[in-house]
């Protein structure tokens, strides 16, 4: 506790010296990390540079066309409103739910800890569809009920998902799960003794939460807020599907429209998205600043002791409420639509049929896509988890990585989030199909793309977990004679398992739900389930969308199971 420096170094494989006289200077260690930074730069930055280079090629033209885009100011404003709004919803609700979870009676803890994550498993297309069945102004089931009870008048309303509020709440609800996952993993890991100390000082539970628990959760909060903010800035599906009737456009939908036709105006797309990039980098810098002194967030004490917090059934109310809103209702609507011949505005069990399921399932594409998705997921997890672990270690202040290396690693670790995915897909395509990579059509390209996409999600949970455990456990391991690799495997991984679990789960969800980039990087014979769903959304029927959405949910669940195994199984609660 008296010190904060951790001498984490690159794995032993990189150091042939085995005698005790082996020399290792900090500069040499710095080089290992610099190498890591370079690899990441190639991986992540290259496509972005390639994309922005196309913009720079045609800078005056692009700026001219940018100026011509109608209502450009409004698009940026809407983007901002939606981003800020949904981030606020997500952070407040996610944190609140995570706190409620700590107060849930032990018996119910396990079930309750998993349920709020379910909304994340639903593809956003599915959530949006589900909600549009419930809250379309005319035919939304809830609206019909509300009108039946005399709330609202006429044959439309009172509620409307196809509105700014709808988009914010919808996106906020989906993102809530993100925040919940981060914060709750980090709450689970915390040293409860520190809360006991606050109680012993006379602080009420609420006050304890605000003054002790929450500040110690700061890394998790900051990281999840940053990620959620970037996601909210770049979100696509929800505004695309819900924004059209109210003519709400955000940057990513505008970019999508720009890129929808031949010839694709990359320059304009890049120019449109540039402010996102700038804001994204700003968010990353702010986040670094907010966590300047990581010693302050070591919440897992080495002299710890379990504390049984007081529990209450009331804690179930918000959690169950969230479940109903985010899962039960839309999922229920989705299931019933998947069983109906078509969406008729009514749920009528007498018309239920399994036809949609059989037709989707009998399509050989479906099975192929599921297999491909799981395979790609597995490869991605195998690559991204170790890589992101290294990145997280490099980002720890106590690791003596030179600042000139750490800053780029930090920015690189998040920057892929600052690009609309539709553009990223193009960027990957023309970067990796050209020399020196020429990966087009190979599995490597798929993995590289997924790794780039998911690394921001894999790094942050591990980073906040690593911050919370402090240096002392790995120090104790090293003193016991274990090298960096042994320490990582036997001490650090198990201790940050909740963070690893979150990382793996997030990667799974991202990969399983991804379609925009997948379309571009997969070969035609290898489709993923996300692109099938996208196809069906654009060309197919509502029940088929519902069926595919539910299938995707199932695939995600399988993926989560896989990642659970990779991240080391269910030993989290032992800590």
């Amino acid at each position, binding site marked *: 506790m008296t010190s904060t420096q951790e001498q984490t170094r690159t794995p032993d494989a990189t150091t042939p010296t085995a005698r005790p006289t082996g020399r290792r200077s900090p500069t040499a260690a710095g080089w290992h990390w610099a190498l890591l930074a370079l690899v990441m730069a190639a991986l992540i930055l290259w496509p972005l540079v390639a994309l922005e280079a196309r913009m720079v090629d045609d800078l005056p033209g692009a700026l001219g066309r940018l100026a011509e885009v109608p209502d450009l100011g409004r698009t940026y404003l809407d983007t901002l409103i939606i981003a800020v709004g949904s981030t606020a919803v997500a952070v407040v609700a996610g944190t609140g739910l995570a706190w409620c979870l700590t107060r849930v009676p032990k018996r119910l803890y396990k079930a309750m800890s998993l349920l709020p994550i379910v909304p994340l498993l639903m593809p956003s297309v599915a959530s949006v569809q589900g909600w549009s069945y419930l809250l*379309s102004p005319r035919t939304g089931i809830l609206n019909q009920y509300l009108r039946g009870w005399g709330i609202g008048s006429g044959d*439309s309303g009172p509620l409307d998902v196809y509105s700014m509020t709808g988009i914010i709440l919808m996106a906020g609800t989906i993102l809530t799960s993100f925040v919940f996952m981060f914060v709750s993993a980090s709450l689970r890991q915390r040293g409860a003794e520190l809360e006991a100390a606050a109680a012993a000082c006379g602080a009420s539970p609420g006050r304890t939460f605000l003054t002790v628990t929450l500040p110690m959760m700061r890394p998790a909060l900051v990281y999840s807020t940053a990620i959620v903010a970037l996601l909210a800035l770049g979100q696509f599906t929800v505004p695309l599907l819900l924004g*059209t009737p109210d003519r709400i456009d955000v940057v990513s939908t505008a970019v999508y429209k720009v890129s*929808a036709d031949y010839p694709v105006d990359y320059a304009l797309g890049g120019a449109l998205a540039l402010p996102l990039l700038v804001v994204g980098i700003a968010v990353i810098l702010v986040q670094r600043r907010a966590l300047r002194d990581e010693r302050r967030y070591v919440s897992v004490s080495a002299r710890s002791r379990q504390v049984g917090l007081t529990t209450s059934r009331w804690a179930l109310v918000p959690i169950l409420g969230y479940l109903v809103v985010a899962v039960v209702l839309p999922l229920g609507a989705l299931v019933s639509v998947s069983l109906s011949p*078509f969406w*008729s505005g009514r749920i009528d069990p007498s018309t239920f049929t399994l036809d949609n399921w059989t037709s989707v399932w009998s399509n050989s594409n479906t099975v192929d896509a599921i297999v491909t998705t799981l395979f790609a997921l597995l490869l991605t997890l195998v690559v991204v988890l170790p890589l992101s672990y290294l990145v997280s270690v490099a980002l720890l202040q106590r690791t003596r990585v030179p600042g000139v290396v750490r800053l780029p690693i930090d920015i690189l670790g998040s920057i892929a989030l600052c690009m609309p995915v539709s553009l990223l897909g193009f960027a990957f395509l023309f970067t990796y*199909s050209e020399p020196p990579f020429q990966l087009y059509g190979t599995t490597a390209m798929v993995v590289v793309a997924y790794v780039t996409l998911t690394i921001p999600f894999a790094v942050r949970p591990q980073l906040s977990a690593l911050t919370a455990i402090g240096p002392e456990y790995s120090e104790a391991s090293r003193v016991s004679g274990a090298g960096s690799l042994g320490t990582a495997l036997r001490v650090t991984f198990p201790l940050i398992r909740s963070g690893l679990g979150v990382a793996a789960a997030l990667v799974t969800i991202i990969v399983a739900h991804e379609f925009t980039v997948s379309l571009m990087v997969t070969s035609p*014979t290898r489709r993923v389930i996300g692109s099938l769903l996208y196809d069906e959304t654009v060309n197919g*029927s509502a029940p088929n969308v519902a069926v595919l959405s539910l299938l995707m949910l199932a695939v995600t669940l399988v993926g989560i199971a896989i990642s659970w195994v990779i991240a080391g199984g269910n030993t989290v609660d032992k800590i």
Partner: protein
Amino acid sequence: APAAAGGSVADPNEGGGPAWQAVVDAANKEGQVVLYSNSDGVNAEFEAAWAKAYPGIELVVSKYASGELTTKLDAEKGGGVAGADVITVSTKPWLEANLNVLVASTGPALGKYWGDSSYVYGDGKYVLAAATPLGAGINTEQLAKLGNPPVTTYKDLLAPQLKGALGIVPGTGAPAAEQWWFYAAKEMGGDPAVGQLADLQPRLYTVPATLATDLASGEVAVGAYNIKGTIDALAAKGAPVEFVTLEPVISTPVTAAVVGWAKNPNAAQVFQNWLLSPAGQIALNGSGSLLTPLDLAALGEVPTTMRSIPAGATVVDGVLTPEQKTWVTDLWNAKMRLG
């Protein structure tokens, strides 16, 4: 009636010499043909018809939006990687710009059925294989509630009863759709009609599929820019919807081509030839959802639902003229408040 597709129609390979037969044999050896498509009509029935005709050659279909599709084609045309063999697209500009990497159809069908067709371009390097007629969909129940205003012409879309009950796909960013509205607006009565349409506060949709869904559920009573196939499929499942062909027909193109870097060049030729033959035309257009560019008479026995592109009908080409461009940005987007 779609069952009539295939069956008794002429053998697509009829008239091909031994050279063509060699191509067919090679194609069977290749065993696979990859189709990139951004257009309508390539559905399960279509794939089933192909499988029946060439059980030895697997048809792999990949669907993309125009931008993605053309970017992918651009990426593929340089390097020797697995990719598309044939394409059916609606993006004429790309085809024009890439004539040099397309391969003309070598099969017998082109000469036999398309000899004098105006829909063959670049010496057969690409061919308009079908036209997608777009029209209105109506929800009969909802329309009854509104007092059953007639919906048969473009002008009918402007009926004041439809205020708040009309859905449209404005087609922002998709030139073919914008062109469609350009011509439709002309039929509605020119530029002032756009204002009238806007006054009805139509509900906007991104793609025809979602509009059709909402039409079936009754969220809107009338939808414009609908695809017949989609509406018909819903009606077949019992939805209270009908497709209304608005006259004159305005349709979007489905163009087919063989690409020069095909990994399965022979299968690609066989596919293209099949598509251009009566068998393929019936598979694609037999249900009447799409219109065939050929004379029905020339095709032999065809399903009763099949239709040709009517004379004088507009097939938009997805290339906005300067005049159309101005109309889209200054009038259409402005009135509809589209960004």
